């Protein structure tokens, strides 16, 4: 689960940013004659929903319902006891408890007269949820994420990822030389403490002495020339840096093409 600082600083990400993103999605929905877009989110697949609503279910699932007309709704698997926290991190006012998303989605659709809705990347929904939604009364139409989710064209998205990268760069500039001779998990612990203190929401740290690909810490002593790969999430924005101690050159053995606009930082192409 996420156990770093999950917060919403409105000077970094003003509410208008989310409004603008929702308007772009609404325009696409209008063109396709769809009354609403449904966006799934969970612990590790939260990027798209967060792009619109800044909410991520830290150990659960959620469904964002973004109508063309009217206010969006967030269906949450988490207990209403957490709603005060949820409402502190999202511009969405209408937060509802939902163990089974199909039933409340059907109710909202019935209330508003929707016979079909768009579903972001419908075929990538978890199988159990996909089956439950398909068994409901409202028709589902796939909306490919590329149509509405444009992180590379969004100045706020780029700026936030830049901050994430800067956190990693600053930490590595100071800490990298001290890794040699340490057990890998000791070094990881030092970095985790430092980066989480600086506001990292989540981290995935891999290391290698060059005798194999980077891997999670496994009680190996770091040798001169070791390499480290850090994926860091800052307020919902992932970045990833790989460095070799004592060298500014890229280690070609570490090079893997990955996408950074997907749901997780280690998505190889």
């Amino acid at each position, binding site marked *: *689960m*996420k*156990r*770093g*600082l*999950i*917060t919403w600083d409105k000077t970094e990400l003003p509410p208008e940013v989310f409004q603008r993103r929702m308007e772009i999605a609404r325009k696409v929905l209008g063109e396709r004659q769809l009354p609403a877009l449904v966006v799934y989110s*969970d*612990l*590790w697949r939260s990027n798209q929903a967060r792009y619109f609503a800044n909410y991520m279910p*830290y*150990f659960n699932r959620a469904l964002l319902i973004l109508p063309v007309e009217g206010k969006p709704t967030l269906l949450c698997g988490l*207990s*209403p*006891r*957490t709603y*005060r*926290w949820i409402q*502190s991190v999202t511009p969405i006012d209408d937060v509802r408890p939902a163990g089974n998303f199909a039933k409340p989605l059907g109710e909202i659709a019935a209330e508003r007269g929707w016979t079909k809705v768009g579903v972001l990347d*419908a*075929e*990538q*929904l*978890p*199988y*159990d949820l*996909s*089956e439950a939604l398909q068994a409901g009364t409202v028709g589902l139409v796939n909306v490919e994420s590329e149509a509405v989710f444009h992180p590379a064209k969004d100045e706020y998205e780029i700026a936030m990822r830049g901050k994430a990268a800067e956190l990693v760069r600053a930490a590595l500039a100071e800490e990298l030389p001290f890794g040699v001779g340490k057990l890998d*998990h*000791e070094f*990881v*612990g*030092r970095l*985790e*403490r*430092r980066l*989480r*203190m600086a*506001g990292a929401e989540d981290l*995935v740290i*891999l290391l290698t002495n060059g005798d*194999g*690909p*980077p*891997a*999670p*810490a496994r*009680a190996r002593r770091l040798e001169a020339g070791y390499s480290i790969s850090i994926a860091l999430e800052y307020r919902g924005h992932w970045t990833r840096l790989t460095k070799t101690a004592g060298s500014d050159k890229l280690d070609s053995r570490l090079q*893997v*093409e990955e996408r950074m606009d*997907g*749901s*997780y930082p*280690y*998505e*190889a*192409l």
Partner: protein
Amino acid sequence: MLNTSRRDQYLNLMASRGWDHLLLYGHAWRKDFFRSLVNFSFFGPHAVAALSKSGELSILASHPWDAENIKATLDADITCNGDFNSALKRFARANTAIAGMELMEARFVEHFPSAVSATLAVEELRRFKTPEEIDTARRAAHLADLGYQHFVDTAEVGMAEYELAAEVEGFLKTRGVEHNFMLIGSGGTEVYGMKPPTDRRFQRGDSITTELSPQVDGCYAQICRTLILGEPSENQSRSFAIFREAQQAAEDFLKPGVNIMDVARVQNDVFRREGFGEYTTSKYTRVRGHNLGLHPDENPYVLEDVDCVVDKDMVLIAHPNTYLPLAGYMVFGDTLVVTETGCERLNKSDKKLFWKEA
């Protein structure tokens, strides 16, 4: 890396059900089905292990580094493909059962002709730990104790929740913990639960609650404790006494043959007797405990409407965590392993309301 005890269990399961192939699927959040057979903490988005009824093992990972790391220590057919959806077609054979099928992307499942879910059957096997897994849970519980002591030693007035979480995370990772499920809450009677850490700063008199759940070699253990900054008030002490008695009731009751619903009931009965029965409902609390293993929140959940007979080698936590108007949300619980005649508490931390001068 290969759990041979589980492999043998899975082969027996396949034979009894008539399955030709068993797939164990994992993604970045839920790696547990995959890790129950191939205990590697993959970091790419997806991985699947496929076991044939003749015992052949094939693995598909979505990140090349995962595949190479597994190849280094496991003799099996191991492949990698960033296009996991397309690569999965190779495993799409008839008469295949899938553990973790519900978690899979819908398009993955569509490749399989008449796929059957093996999730429940595999969960039921995983519910009972191997001797090696119990040893690992013991090590994880020890680290939970150490981590909680660090939590107590470090917490102070003026510190933010996320700073305390960072201190604990650094402490545990330094000692080789691979992951940690951690919730936190702080304040008084206005606090109704725990959540990820915020930037709220601790104040004198705060009740600081946490669930710490270090993961060691795949296995989670958990500890729940409450820390008061300053001497506990009468209400905080009175409230804690109820939690302490409820948890002890579960620990005294737990043994092979009892039903998990009664493990919940004996805890809730303590609250009812004290006039706080309504605070044992879903409005104020989630569960009265749960199984532990390769996932920190495994079935069965300890609830009065869950029908499941307890047996030896289950590892679970009994935690009567809930809100009470006396002192707000409070937590208390320990990891327990079911033995022949009762249960053993794996955590060794004092069973007390922790407090420190503020």
